[in-house]
């Protein structure tokens, strides 16, 4: 067991503004960035605001930007950095700061409400659902989502364009539309709801230009772009011509 002293810069402030604050702090074998933030709370900055819960990469609470990259603090091991490196921890940039590392992620909860829920098939009662594993695999992949909102944070459609937030649901909720659209028993169509059309018309699927940034930051390794967004674009294509779909299918084949 070896320990050393690391240099940290942590953004501190609130809605009025703030700045990076320097810390020197002990680091032990096997620790993750969240451990270090907790050590700062316990020893140097008791009121340092941070969200966290499970500390095991399952709840998606401790999202932040570490050296500029959106990550879960509980799954970022200190061993990925050199001992000399100064580690900078800042709040998610795409959302308004509340205090220190805590941001207002209300945008995501608003968007969640705008996606119509699963529509149960009328003819089947509880216990009568029959679905084959291979038919639920795809939607199950999307349901691995822990709602850390790193994809929402990194997506440049909203990251640098606040004005797009109104019309664009972001990768997480476009993926939710895809999940429901691919659910073997979703009866939305029978009830007159065309999920593909809403993806395009109401949730801003057209804004996505499949740069795959969302997939890159996903801590669950969900292939958001390839498995959710591009197929959704393809399914929507018979309604609207989208040049990116064509491009997307080319890119996907190449990789």
């Amino acid at each position, binding site marked *: *067991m070896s320990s050393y002293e690391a240099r940290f810069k942590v953004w501190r402030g*609130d809605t009025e503004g703030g700045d990076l604050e320097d810390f020197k702090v002990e680091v*032990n*074998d*096997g*620790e*993750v960035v969240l*451990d270090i933030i907790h050590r700062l*709370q*316990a*020893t140097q900055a*008791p*009121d*340092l*605001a*941070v*969200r*966290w*819960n*499970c*500390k*095991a*990469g*399952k*709840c*998606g*609470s401790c999202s932040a930007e570490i050296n500029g990259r959106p990550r879960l603090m509980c*799954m970022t*091991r200190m061993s990925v950095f050199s001992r000399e490196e100064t580690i900078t921890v800042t709040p998610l940039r795409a959302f308004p700061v*509340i*205090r*220190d590392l*805590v941001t207002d*992620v209300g945008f995501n*909860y608003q968007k*969640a*409400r705008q996606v*119509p*829920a*699963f529509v*149960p098939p009328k003819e089947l009662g*509880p*216990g009568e*659902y*029959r*679905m*084959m*594993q291979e038919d*639920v695999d795809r*939607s*199950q992949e999307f*349901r*691995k*989502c*822990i*709602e850390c909102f790193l994809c929402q944070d990194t997506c440049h459609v909203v990251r640098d364009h606040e004005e797009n937030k109104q019309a664009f649901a972001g990768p997480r909720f476009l993926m939710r539309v895809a999940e*429901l659209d691919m*659910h073997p028993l*979703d009866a939305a169509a029978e009830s007159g709801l065309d999920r593909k059309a809403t993806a395009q018309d109401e949730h801003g699927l057209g804004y996505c230009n499949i740069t795959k940034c969302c997939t890159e930051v996903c801590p669950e390794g969900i292939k958001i772009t390839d498995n959710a967004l591009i197929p959704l674009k393809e399914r929507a294509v018979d309604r609207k011509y989208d040049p990116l779909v064509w491009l997307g299918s080319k890119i996907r084949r190449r990789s």
Partner: protein
Amino acid sequence: MSVVDRQEWDVVVVGAGGAGLRAAIEARERGARTAVICKSLFGKAHTVMAEGGIAAAMANVNEHDNWQVHFRDTMRGGKFLNQWRMAELHAREAPDRVWELETWGALFDRTKDGRISQRNFGGHEYPRLAHVGDRTGLELIRTLQQKIVSLQQEDFKETGDYESRLKVFQECTVTRVLKQDEKVSGVFAYDRETGRFFVLEAPAVVIATGGIGKSFKVTSNSWEYTGDGHALALLAGAPLLNMEFVQFHPTGMVWPPSVKGILVTESVRGDGGVLRNSDGKRFMFDYVPDVFKEKYAESEEEADRWYDDPENNRRPPELLPRDEVARAINSEVKAGRGSPHGGVFLDVSTRMPAEVIKRRLPSMYHQFKELADVDITAEAMEVGPTCHYVMGGIAVDSDSAAARGVPGLFAAGEVAGGMHGSNRLGGNSLSDLLVFGRRAGWHAAEYSAGLAGGRPVVEDAQIDAAAAEALRPFSAESPDEAAPENPYTLHQELQQTMNDLVGIIRREGEMAHALEKLAELRVRARRAGVEGHRQFNPGWHLALDLRNMLLVSECVARAALERTESRGGHTREDHPTMERSWRNVNLLCRLADPTGGLAATDPERGQIDLVRETTEPIRPDLLALFDKEELVKYLAEEELYE
């Protein structure tokens, strides 16, 4: 007098895990305007960490399963201390609660014929756990969350307001349940983000706050598990039941230190993983207790055959109930046969092909790879016991989930006591949440509607007292000019105390010492000071949570000292056997000073009074589900005669 925001609701649910959300859905569907308050963001509750599955006798994988078998397994797992009516309701209703989730969009893993797949788990006679890989809790919480959103969408269509009938107050903490005379009148809470106080007036309050694990150093529980609901109920005058029973899950990570305690799912063993000591021996064969002798394999060959042929072979002892496995691991480590970091080895790498491991246990593969640099498809994991669950909790009526003695107070999920007796079986918590969450929401809505115009009133004096209590850390008392206490330091000392003195193996002297230490911490906690202001201030939040952890820890220590036997999640080194005479004894904890004075420093008296109570006899038709020979092992003489 402080000016505090007030809102009126029919039902308030404290906690937004599985039980809280299921209660809220039920209350809203039965017409009650329902508010949910939770400490974290909506959808982050501790339920997401449940891995293995939801136990429900759907008989999809083994046709012999039914509610009676499930009931039997649950009673055996709890060593017959379970509130039997809860165990009965749970076993009967669990399948409907699982199937209902599918109609709300849940996607469970499937059998070959397209039904919900079910897996083996410790203590369950048949494959019974509906699951989604090893992330079942996430599926459960997300499904309930999305059901709530869908109800809000319906309300929006009708009223133009998503939150007109069902609202989630996220990142808010309740510090007091308010009462007028004997009846619940609402809750006092603060908004974590702004630090502002507010009051929700409601005649019915459902407590669904989960457990107490954060009072222990090594735990699989998240920061939220500070025993809030247990403490709120105590402070409101409701008793807690059998708080000595704390489940140490046998398999938590032991290395690296920063992840010590994080859960390694029981599915690893359910799917074929085995436990070995440093000699490479599968030691569990040496630890099958008498009451389970006939049901578990005696050789590795028989155990291994069971996975493919459960009809003609007995199950491997790795699948004994959790209390047995945790004690066995503890003994192996103590005998010097542990792994390098003080655990034992849990191995799947030699039992299944790598692809199968990655498919069936994806989170475990990921967790060990990312956090410990261990590839579980190539080498064994190191695991050891971790504080996981509290069987004790608020004493409730089995059918209605109503807390005893406080009209308008209900409790469901881990915070409620009784259901699991002295030890919970894996998979029975998620089903518990659904079955009793629904019942709590149902009866809370009914109770609230039944009051009509005669609702209890929230009195200003109570609000002022609650506000003063919550603000105390900003003006910490320091009589002799001593520096205020650091709440983080107090918390660490509390965790160390509970871990060392009231942990998995207990001794009289140590528990008495723990009570003294808790009394000292309680006095020091009065001086816990806070820096900064009220806006999102974790130091302040922790200072307030300390009150709850100290109260609950005292309940655990006091009850554990009283119960002079070993049963389930309570192991006494000085009383190592299970005593039939204790089978029908419940221990109830009540607040010693009902006026709420919380600084009693005398460890002899402390804050908690303990009362013994004889349990209601088990209904004859339920007893008839067991063989006489088995009952003799558990029931006291006089119980057998009746």
